């Protein structure tokens, strides 16, 4: 502790440089935590899904709908205990700058099949009875300042026109992956407005036993194999994973950028530390003359690097941990449940320690190995 004043005095030698170095470490770790959190949030979303829920989509691709008539045929298959369907709507609200997901669902079956969507019973009843009603996630309430019972108008992008809904209920998801910024409304109303096209974007199939999933999925796909719209059925987790896979390259890109940023900052920090140590060649020689051992000087330089790296880490990682919940960040709805996971904080802390070792080691070794007489000749 008695040496800490010396460490602080050295850090205060070039305050601006020290502050900028700490801020660059903080920024690097903030970016690292942010980019990694995108990846972990996507991975967590891909893990979402009830084990007894299957999702059936058009085999050609998710953007192609399926006939609504498939529902009854799927429901009749052995092992199927429940069925619901949904359709991506893609409406925008206001200037559309603040995006949120919205889709039409078969309300009663949908709420039954997704017990993770929790809302008061009276609101649930009101929604089920109101053909033009909508359910919204609690985040939308605070984000747009909407109130229960208020009319909200979305502009259709895929299905043109103004679509006005009454906010009948506000739900709170028990699983963050389900998203608390989604608007859902009645599929029946949707189907009516688009002229009874009889389409469903995807089916959600509840099965009696997890072990029957492959067999039920196969029997669904076999049923429509030779139809005009063949299906592709998988577990809900696989369905979520396809979304995550769409982000796969983005995740890789983000991880790579994150590492590149950390590496670049490492070079900056190492350079600052080296400069600082080089400037003090004479002083290090004087300290050695006084009796400071090589080991002690090595430790002092390492502690200096550590103070900078760890202060930066606390600011960067702590900042990321506090910042995103404070602004309710969810990546425009694409990253529901976005959070800086403990694993990210741990890896970030390890990166900071690595940063400390990498940036401090060279100057610390230099200080320790400095030949006194030669160094004194520079200053005398």
């Amino acid at each position, binding site marked *: 502790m008695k040496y800490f004043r*010396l460490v602080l005095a050295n850090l205060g030698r070039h305050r601006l440089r020290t502050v900028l170095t700490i801020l660059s470490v903080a920024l690097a770790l903030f970016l690292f935590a942010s980019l990694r959190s995108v990846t972990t949030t996507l991975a967590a979303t891909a893990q979402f899904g009830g084990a007894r829920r299957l999702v059936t989509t058009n085999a050609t691709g998710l953007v192609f709908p399926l006939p609504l008539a498939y529902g009854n045929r799927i429901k009749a298959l052995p092992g199927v205990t429940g069925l619901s369907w949904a359709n991506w709507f893609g409406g925008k609200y206001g200037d559309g700058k603040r995006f949120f997901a919205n889709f039409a669902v078969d309300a009663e079956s949908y709420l039954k099949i997704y017990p993770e969507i929790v809302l008061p019973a009276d609101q649930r009843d009101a929604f089920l009875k109101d053909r033009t009603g909508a359910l919204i996630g609690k985040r939308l309430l605070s984000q747009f300042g909407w109130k229960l019972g208020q009319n909200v108008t979305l502009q259709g992008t895929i299905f043109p026109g103004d679509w006005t809904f009454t906010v009948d209920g506000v739900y709170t998801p028990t699983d963050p992956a389900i998203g608390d910024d989604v608007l859902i409304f009645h599929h029946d109303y949707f189907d009516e407005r688009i002229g009874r096209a009889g389409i469903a974007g995807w089916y959600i199939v509840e099965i009696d036993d997890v072990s029957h999933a492959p067999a039920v999925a196969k029997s669904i796909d076999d049923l429509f194999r030779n139809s005009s719209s063949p299906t592709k059925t998988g577990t809900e987790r696989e369905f979520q994973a396809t979304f995550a896979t769409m982000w796969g390259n983005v995740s890789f890109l983000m991880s790579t950028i994150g590492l590149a940023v950390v590496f670049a900052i490492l070079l900056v920090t190492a350079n600052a530390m080296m400069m600082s140590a080089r400037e003090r060649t004479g002083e290090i020689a004087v300290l050695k003359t*006084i009796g*400071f051992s*090589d*080991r002690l000087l090595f430790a002092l330089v390492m502690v200096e690097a550590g103070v900078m790296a760890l202060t930066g880490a606390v600011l960067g990682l702590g900042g990321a941990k506090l910042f995103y919940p404070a602004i309710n960040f969810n990546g425009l709805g694409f990253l529901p449940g976005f959070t800086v996971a403990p694993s990210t904080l741990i890896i970030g802390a390890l990166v900071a320690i690595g940063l400390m070792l990498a940036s401090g080691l060279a100057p610390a070794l230099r200080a320790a190995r400095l030949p006194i007489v030669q160094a004194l000749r520079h200053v005398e």
Partner: protein
Amino acid sequence: MALVEIRDVYKSFQRDTQRIDVFTGLTLDIDAGSFTALMGPSGSGKSTLLNLIAGLDKPTRGTVRVGGEAVSEMSASQLAAWRARHIGFVFQSFNLLPVLTAYQNVELPLLLTRLSGKERNERVKIALDVVGLADRADHYPRQLSGGQEQRTAIARAIVADPTVMLLDEPTGQLDAKSSQEVLALLQRLNSEFTKTIIIVTHDAHAAERAKMVLHLEKGDLIEKPRATAAAMR
């Protein structure tokens, strides 16, 4: 027995392909409580001799003993600990740490001891008082004059009560008045506190303050140690 014993010391440096022999069998004794001035032209080996006594450098051959301990045989870590206990070194250009106050600079050698904060505080205050800078304790080196900086450096050298004080041209960067103040202080440390002092200097006036003058030329003592007028007083 002499405090500093230099026996048949050889020291050579390699500069590019050329070998420079500084000492070729130097033998010398310096007594405890003495005030010795090392004089001689540049390149005569004065500073090298000081570095050898301080354990900052090692002889190519021969032994250097201080207080009975073979400095030339010690490892780097042993030397660091030994210097902390036995050597007070003063440089020509003061070499105070600019980020520390006079007090903190003087305290540096005591950080290496087991003294408590209170004990360190007492010792630093005494050292600053001895050099007449008790009222400058909180000043940074840039706020001190050259003479005051050198007196702070002397306080740093004496604070741990070393066995021997080594000074390399301590008045080399000072004006006449400050030089006199520093030299008077050294004389006082030697006479009042019986500090053993070895000073390297080009300045004949400075050497006159010492009790003994040694003349080096090309690594050899060119005349026997000579007592000065100061020694007669």
